[in-house]
């Protein structure tokens, strides 16, 4: 699981759960997502993300989601017990 934080929000992706459908990549209004060499979800750059959660609600496999980060800073955040790897 990877976490990308800006301020108090974080975008989290769990490539292990991703089936590589590309729905989130296609739907993201900021076009910041892509499928990596092994066809799994990855984040190009987090800065433009508006945390709209469209990717989250479209993902059939719960592999990408937004969380309110508990602590600001670069370390991965984990709340709600969602997707602990």
């Amino acid at each position, binding site marked *: 699981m990877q976490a990308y934080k800006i301020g108090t929000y974080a975008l989290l992706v769990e490539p292990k759960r991703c089936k590589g459908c*590309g729905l989130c990549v296609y739907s993201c209004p900021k076009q910041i997502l892509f499928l990596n060499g092994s066809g799994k979800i990855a984040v190009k750059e987090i800065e433009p993300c508006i945390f709209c959660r469209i990717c989250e609600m479209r993902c059939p*496999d719960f592999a990408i989601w937004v969380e309110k980060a508990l602590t600001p800073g670069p370390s991965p955040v984990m709340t709600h017990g969602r997707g602990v790897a």
Partner: protein
Amino acid sequence: MPNTKVLAIREEREKRFTGAHALCAGCGTPIAVRAVLNAIEEPVVVVTATGCLEVATTRYPTTAWNVPWLHVAFENAAAVASGIESAYRVLRRRGVLSKEIRFVAFAGDGGTYDIGLQALSGALERGHRFLYVCCDNEAYMNTGNQRSGATPIAAQTTTAPVGEESFGKIQRRKDLTEIVVAHRIPYVAQASIGDWYDLASKVRKAISQDGPSFINVMTSCPRGWGHDSNQTVKITRLAIETCFWPLFEVEDGRWTLNYIPEEKLPVEMWLRPQKRFAHLFEPQEKTELLREIQKHVDRDWERLLQRCEVSAGASV
């Protein structure tokens, strides 16, 4: 208002449906299930008919459901929901239970249009308070794409093959939503994963009825329909924009159109990106048949417009 954020926040509080399922990449059904369950505030009990959703979400010993869930057979999701709802009413009357609980049945088009129709009709007629959601992907996809009552004309399926003498399914799909309207239940709607806001708003309306409610949701199947898995939502959106799958609701017999496209697109735009309709365009275009399909869509749309207008006039 149930926009994306509201739905996601609801899910944060309680995760009713999870990713522990084996549905295909880009499947439209879990998108619908999430939207439906997140739009309901009260505790829910879920019933599913046999189908992709049931099989792929409950592989022993795992389950993707984080709510009370029951499956009995293919044909009786509505009957099972009726039983649960009746038991609930009795327990409430006896004072054993006081909680407000909502009941939702999910079934595919096979389990609704064909196999479960009789159970559905009975449950609607008896007036049980539950929401029935049909996840309509227009064929028996769980067993590898066989035609169902929901499969549109000219679609290729394994049991409606394309060849020199045939062009896929030769019959038109039946209008299930209309059949359900004929039961005179409090709330009937047609929705799609191509419009979230509309779907979630309809679920909220449906669940607050004191009686049966029914929502027919178009969910695409990338494998059966033959499109890229990232086009699932786009393709259902095209069905709305071409008026092949209009969004409307019928409340106590009053018809309301929820969306009128600014520019009604030709149905070809919905057909062309799907491989199950490829034979309509290659090796040469079947113009006659395409014109016929467009005529069906136009006629249905006109009829729907009239109905909605007549109801609007009648309710003033």
